[in-house]
């Protein structure tokens, strides 16, 4: 995300055209984070839109101690967490802060590939992330993808820093199993060519 300081300052002075420019420059990044957190394109679109409505008010409070992108990601995460909470309530699911790892059943792993380019790896990582429980996915997305501090992650989720850490390690472990381990195993099983991928249950 690259939003020039001059655009931010004009937004802070209430220039509506500058604000539209800001949306154009940052929306893709905001949407990507929202999608990674909510795991659902409709919710992500709603979160992205709501983020800018919230920003309209709060951009005046941006002081430039943090990078603008960091600040905007924080607002996005906060809106996304509200959306996830609402969704859990609507579906009578366990609230985000009380999710238990034991309650989650790992889905059958997706299609592995031996040699992946950056784009493919990103896609596979994104789909692996989607299989995690929302409250664990949020932790690893905020911490390992977007570089939030663990304190900030705990804060966003309404859990302690220690609890955030436990979730982070569980999530990393699962992702590693899904992505790194299975790929060579499958490659061995089916050979380097294509072929009906299926096989071993452990």
């Amino acid at each position, binding site marked *: 995300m690259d939003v020039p300081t001059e655009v931010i300052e004009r937004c802070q002075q209430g220039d509506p055209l500058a604000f539209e420019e800001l949306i154009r420059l940052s929306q893709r990044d905001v*949407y*990507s984070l929202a999608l990674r957190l909510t795991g659902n394109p409709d919710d*992500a679109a709603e979160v992205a839109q709501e983020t800018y*409505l919230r920003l309209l008010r709060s951009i005046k409070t941006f002081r430039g101690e943090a990078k603008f992108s960091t600040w905007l990601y924080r607002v996005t995460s906060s809106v996304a967490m509200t959306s996830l909470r609402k969704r859990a309530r609507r579906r009578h699911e366990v609230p985000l802060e009380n999710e238990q790892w034991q309650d989650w059943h790992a889905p059958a792993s997706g299609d592995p590939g031996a040699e992946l380019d950056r784009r493919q790896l990103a896609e596979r990582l994104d789909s692996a992330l989607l299989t995690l429980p929302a409250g664990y996915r949020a932790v690893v997305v905020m911490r390992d993808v977007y570089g939030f501090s663990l304190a900030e992650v705990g804060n966003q989720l309404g859990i302690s820093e220690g609890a955030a*850490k436990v979730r982070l390690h569980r999530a990393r472990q699962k992702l590693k199993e899904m992505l790194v381990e299975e790929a060579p195993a499958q490659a061995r099983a089916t050979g380097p060519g294509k072929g009906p991928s299926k096989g071993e249950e452990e």
Partner: protein
Amino acid sequence: MECREAAQHIPSYIDQSGGPAASALDAHLRTCDRCRGELDAYRDLQGALAALATQTIEPPAWLLPATIDAVRSRVRLRRHVAAAREVRDRLADPRVAAAGGAAILLAGLATGAVLIRGRRRRRLVSGLRTAAVHA
């Protein structure tokens, strides 16, 4: 330290936050290829996750115009609210209230004068009427 225990510590070890198990794990890693492989796998994962931040996902095409529309109508709404608030605040201002009071008072006096004049005229008319009856 055994491999089993080592496996539990590796996901936090990559943060380099030290921790009580770090030195025991260090010692184990020096002697165990398998666990070093594990550590590398986690480091690869970390790298891939960090790189994901720059791998953005294209939003649906309608989102940009919809967001700009939503922002514009929010701006309009805020302007209306601000204008309404200004009117309210102006009325609440004591000086304005005093001026308003004076205006009402003046208006009241004027109305009163008209009424009084009207009543006097009526009295005059009825006086004439009485005079006519008596004539």
